[in-house]
């Protein structure tokens, strides 16, 4: 079966790949681009481990048809770091022990980034809503919620 050419922007870099018909964005990122930060969890859109940002909106890459992202901006956890520095969310996740097995972490980070980009000073309720599509089976969520709130607090401290 013929492959389809596909171009999009991946973490600030133009990529051009070939995809099979019906290929998910997750497979395209992992198998064709080589970005292994989005994870395959359930393949059903139920767990959020594959969360990426498409044009700034949180999206589940496992149920996104790769061909639909032509020309769009894709951000993954792999692109969060700023040069040698970790993103403030990554630092806060580390400090708050928000990762245990770590499998949900890239999805959690991207769900949190989608919230931060729109709302730099979220309430706890807004944080819970932002990660309500992401499942974590280790932490019980509290350390993750605290990490996101801590990252927000640190950011507003810096602004003050």
């Amino acid at each position: 079966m013929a492959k389809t050419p596909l171009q999009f922007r991946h973490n600030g870099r133009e990529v051009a790949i070939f995809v099979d018909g019906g290929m998910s964005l997750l497979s395209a990122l992992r198998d064709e681009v080589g970005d292994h930060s989005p994870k395959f969890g359930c393949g059903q859109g139920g767990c959020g481990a594959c969360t990426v940002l498409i044009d700034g909106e949180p999206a589940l890459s496992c149920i996104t048809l790769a061909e639909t992202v032509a020309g769009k901006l894709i951000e993954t956890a792999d692109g969060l770091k700023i040069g040698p520095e970790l993103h403030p969310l990554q630092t806060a996740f580390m400090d708050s022990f928000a990762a245990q097995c770590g499998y949900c972490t890239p999805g959690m980070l991207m769900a949190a980034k989608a919230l931060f980009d729109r709302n730099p000073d979220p309430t706890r309720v807004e944080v819970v809503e932002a990660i309500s599509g992401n499942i974590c089976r280790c932490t019980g969520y509290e350390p993750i919620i605290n990490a996101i709130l801590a990252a927000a607090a640190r950011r507003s401290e810096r602004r003050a």
Partner: protein
Amino acid sequence: MPVTVKTFAAPTEAAAALNDRSARYIGGGTLLMRALNEGDVSIGTIVRLEDRLLTQVRTNGARITIGAGVTLSQILRERELSFLHAPARLIGGPAVRTAATVGGNLFAPAPYGDLAVALLALDATVSVMSGYGARDVALEEFLASRDRNPGALVLSVACDRPAAPETFRFRKVARVRPKGVSVLSIAASLPAVGGRVSNPRIAYGAMAPTAIRAKAAERALEGRTLDDSGVAGAVAAAAEGTSAVTDAIASAWYRREVVGVHLRRLLLGQGD
């Protein structure tokens, strides 16, 4: 197994492509990509339609037409659609809502499809494209024949805006906070004349394979007031005509047992 993706600009062309039994329409992909990931080999072709009308919300007086490709996130951004914010917000996380569409929700099997429940209570009509052109079908009729016509191409959904916010109510019952898959959901349109309910429409999700109307409860509520004694008849008839199934979320027995409890709370305007 790779499939063929066909993208069309005109609804008539997309509708014609769906005559192929192995062809499926893709909206947001939350149902179709999931099926592909699970290895559904009956899917040979994915049909896409890129038509700007699909993502538009149009108002004409009280009548609102919502393009089938409007996402749940878009609903939450539209002030005109504030009456649909409650069901939209209770579906999925933000990432699901970025993808999930109004049209797709009409095809979601129970226990999914909460938005269709709200639209059924609002007496929505569905614009369906076929080889003969587009025609409007009542949502109730559309849902009743849905599983026999998997190739239907939905262009838009239209309904009247509720006359007042309190006349339209929605409730979703889930086991997980802040949200989870429905044990059941209930939507009710409760217009009142002189303090008495007139022509109510009550719809359930997860009480049958598709969203259904609670016609016995509607009849029992006609002409009644929304207080303890007024709603008693509707509550007693709440499970009549339903055919809930047992799934991972709840048993059919449990759903039948609790539907009256939640209908009562919704009609009396009580919290959980």
